[in-house]
């Protein structure tokens, strides 16, 4: 919910509450005052009515005297009892219909011409009710106007006062650490927004600095590692050149050679990751995936046959726009993975369609959470062949080209889907 809607809601709630209280207070106060003045006028009528009644020859139970309805009832004895109450009386309207109308009724006991009577005077209060209704309408109308005004004011505030905030927000949303550009905010006259802008600026600047340091570190470390690696590797080659050696020697050399090769690949992968992150990749070109996959599979067939893995392929023509190097790596890593984590006698299926590439393979169930699969150095197998960077690189490439990379698994089959955007 937007902040402004939220404040509006509070405004609405509180103004409703206050108006309800004001309305109720008004209603009761008016009621009280009006009843009081009606009662007063009724009491004032009493002596005049007494004189009026004396002049009558005969008392009817209900009489209409001076806009008032007077009822008299003979009683045995007169007491001081008197009271006021509200009542409703059916009145003949101008159009001849009977309508209920509110009345205030004053009842007391009195001697008329020496005989005890209970006398009731009823005075119509329909005008009072009208007055109250009108006043309440005015108040409610005021409330409505007030709410409307608040709403308009809010809109104005949102447009004007909050504008720098929304600008800042848009810039933050647009911020990407890989773009290497700190957002720059325009000056705001509001202290809070100015504070916010300066803080965000400081934070992003720091973030970019830290990120660059880290990236440079990885990059430099990888670069610096290359020369020693090259030296070790070359020395191994030299060792192997010099005449025949014992089997034990060869075993040692083999292990060193394997370890160095692994280090080299690790290094290469890290460099590649930083390069993709920095966008230091060759220019994109249109690449037909179909022949590229075919070529890779051709290389792999003998090995697949050796492991008894059957290969299914269903390749429709599809080209993508990216550097050949990245397309190569993407396929290498996905297919390589599907083979590495396969089982002897299993199968591997590759499907390329217009909007997706699916690589599916048999294999033992995943031992880790699927969402960790694309993290760096998350290895599924402890084997020396796996670096734990392959899928991280795949994800990096897919992110770069807005492809949706998904892993699913069912019934001992693992499926990687690359959905082209």
């Amino acid at each position, binding site marked *: 919910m937007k902040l402004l809607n939220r404040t509006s809601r509070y405004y609405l709630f509180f103004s409703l509450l206050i108006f309800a209280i004001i309305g109720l207070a008004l209603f009761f106060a008016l009621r009280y005052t009006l009843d009081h003045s009606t009662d007063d006028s009724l009491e004032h009528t009493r002596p005049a009515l007494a004189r009026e009644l004396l002049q009558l020859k005969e008392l009817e139970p209900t009489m209409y005297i001076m806009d008032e309805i007077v009822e008299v009832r003979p009683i045995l004895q007169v007491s001081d009892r008197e009271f006021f109450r509200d009542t409703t009386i059916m009145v003949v309207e101008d159009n001849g219909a009977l309508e209920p109308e509110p009345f205030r009724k004053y009842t007391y006991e009195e001697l008329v011409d020496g005989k005890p009577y209970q006398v009731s005077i009823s005075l119509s209060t329909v005008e009072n009710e009208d007055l109250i209704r009108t006043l309440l309408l005015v108040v409610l109308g005021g409330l409505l106007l007030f709410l409307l005004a608040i709403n308009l004011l809010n809109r104005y505030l949102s447009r004007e006062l909050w504008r720098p905030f929304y600008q800042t927000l848009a810039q933050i949303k647009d911020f990407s650490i890989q773009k290497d550009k700190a957002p720059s905010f325009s000056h705001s006259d509001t202290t809070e927004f100015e504070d916010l802008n300066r803080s965000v600026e400081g934070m992003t600047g720091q973030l970019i600095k830290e990120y660059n340091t880290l990236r440079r570190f990885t990059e430099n470390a990888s*670069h610096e590692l*290359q*020369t020693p*690696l*090259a*030296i*070790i*590797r*070359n*020395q*191994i*080659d*030299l060792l*192997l*050149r010099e005449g025949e050696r014992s*089997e034990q020697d*060869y*075993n040692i*050399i*083999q292990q060193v*050679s*394997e370890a*160095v*090769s692994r280090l*080299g*690949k690790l290094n*290469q*992968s890290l*460099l590649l990751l930083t*390069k993709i992150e920095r966008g*230091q*990749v*060759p220019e994109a070109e249109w690449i037909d995936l179909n022949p590229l996959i075919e*070529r*890779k599979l*051709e*290389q*792999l067939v*003998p*090995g697949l*046959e*050796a*492991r008894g893995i059957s290969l299914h392929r269903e390749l429709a023509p599809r080209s993508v726009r990216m550097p050949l*190097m990245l397309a*190569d*790596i993407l396929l*290498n*890593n996905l*297919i*390589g993975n599907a*083979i*590495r984590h396969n089982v002897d006698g299993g199968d591997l299926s590759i499907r390329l369609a217009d909007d997706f590439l699916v690589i599916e393979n048999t294999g033992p169930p995943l031992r880790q959470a699927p969402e960790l699969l694309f993290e760096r150095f998350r290895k599924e197998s402890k084997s020396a*062949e796996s*670096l734990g960077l*392959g899928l991280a690189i795949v994800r990096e490439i897919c992110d770069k080209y807005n492809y949706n990379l998904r892993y699913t698994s069912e019934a001992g089959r693992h499926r990687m889907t690359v959905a082209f955007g």
Partner: protein
Amino acid sequence: MKILLIEDEPSLAASISGYLAADGHLVESVGTLNDALDKSSVYEYDCILVDIGLPDGSGLDIIRQLKADHQRAGIIIVSAKDSIDDRITGLDLGADDYLPKPFHLAELNARIRAIYRRKSFAGERVIEFGEITVNPTEQAVTVNSQPIKLTRSEYSLLEYFLANPNRVITKESVAEHLSGDDADLLDKIDFIYSHVKNLRKKLLEAGAGDYIRSVYGVGYKWAKT
């Protein structure tokens, strides 16, 4: 073949020149850009190996100089700086090949030979080893003048062996050679093994000698027994 090696890392320079010298090449090694410019302006080389990051400048400068002098030498960039820019600039300037560090000496040897073959107008355009003849331009292989059909990987493997006869080539080196710069696909030893096995079988069937020998766990050796 006369080779100029421009590499500022002494132990790397020593191992490279040692390896190449053992192959019968004449190798001169320098560690700075200035020495390299001096040498290359005086002598003619068949092949020049250039490291880009030198203490007194960029190896790219020497490529410019060589091209300006119309030197015929083949140029291979051997560099730790495997940034795409360097690679593209280097090749644009006229370098013939680019080999990122760390590389296998056998791979370097194969690349030098390939460049030498391409450059030498009078020289051998085909590689011969006993009854086996390989024509790199057409990627065609014959055994006793009978053509045999090899897959791309098998052909690449054969060429690699022929460039490095009589020495042990590690499995890692073979794997990297087969999968190019972006290894990882063919890192399984099984896969190399299958390719080697198939190549050996095809050669034997065609009547060639059995030249491929597995050397314990380390790798392979191509040699006449």
